[in-house]
């Protein structure tokens, strides 16, 4: 399933045109991305939560060049499905 399939589904469900659903979908993702930028997560009922976590810096070893490297800390976006969704797709 890709974006156009998704938009097809949405327009059928919400009974709106495809172009309109595309616009709305884009504003929705833009809003969500804006929150992720600020480091805050977004919770969606019956689906799951998106959350930004910080990974600490860590040592790493490249076996090919035999070099020890310190990887910097970074922020990652994680998704945790609600148990209802997990059970449904089991």
């Amino acid at each position: 399933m890709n974006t156009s399939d998704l938009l097809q589904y949405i327009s059928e469900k919400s009974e709106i045109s495809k172009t309109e659903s595309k616009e709305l979908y884009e504003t929705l993702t833009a809003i969500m991305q804006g929150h992720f930028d600020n480091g805050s997560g977004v919770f969606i009922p019956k689906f799951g939560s998106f959350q930004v976590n910080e990974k600490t810096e860590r040592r790493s070893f490249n076996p090919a060049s035999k070099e020890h490297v310190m990887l910097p800390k970074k922020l990652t976006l994680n998704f945790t499905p609600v148990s209802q969704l997990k059970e449904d797709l089991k």
Partner: protein
Amino acid sequence: MASKITFQELLDEFSAATGHTKAFSKKFIKDVFASVQEGLRKDENVNIKGLGIFKLQEVGEREIMNPQTGKTNRIPAHNKIVFKPEKALRERVNSKYADLKSTPLKKEEKSATTEKSSAKKELSEEKAAPPKKPVVFGDTGKKPAEGKTSVPPLPPSPPPGEKKKCRRLLLKKRKRNPPGAGSFPCS
């Protein structure tokens, strides 16, 4: 950092941005993610712009043991949901630390960090494994002398914990490549 936006706040923002009623926007957002769920059920793979890829990943059957009761339990094979944000989003989220780069560790730094980590281990290991000591002494009878001769400008008085650590490291090295005339690991 760990704050989370509630659905209500998301709704408020969304309806303000689009000019639709709250009831409509609520239904719309629910529809979006219900469709994702449907897509997952159908194709096991949903690749959407703006967020990323939702995938179902198979998890094989496995047995677990409850360490308190000692009972074994079987977890049947199932699918789990995996989300991988698209590259642009990954970079966007990490923009705060984007200019940090990985740094190669020099030898001194390396030993410093290992000393720190192994110093902690040392404490626990010393308590846990006293019967190993005689073996250590027997094996390292020659090596420390070698190290002293080959590396004279060592700092004069390393703390007592460090010496033991060096021996252990030496033993480890010897196990891996016994014939090698390895240098003293602490230097």
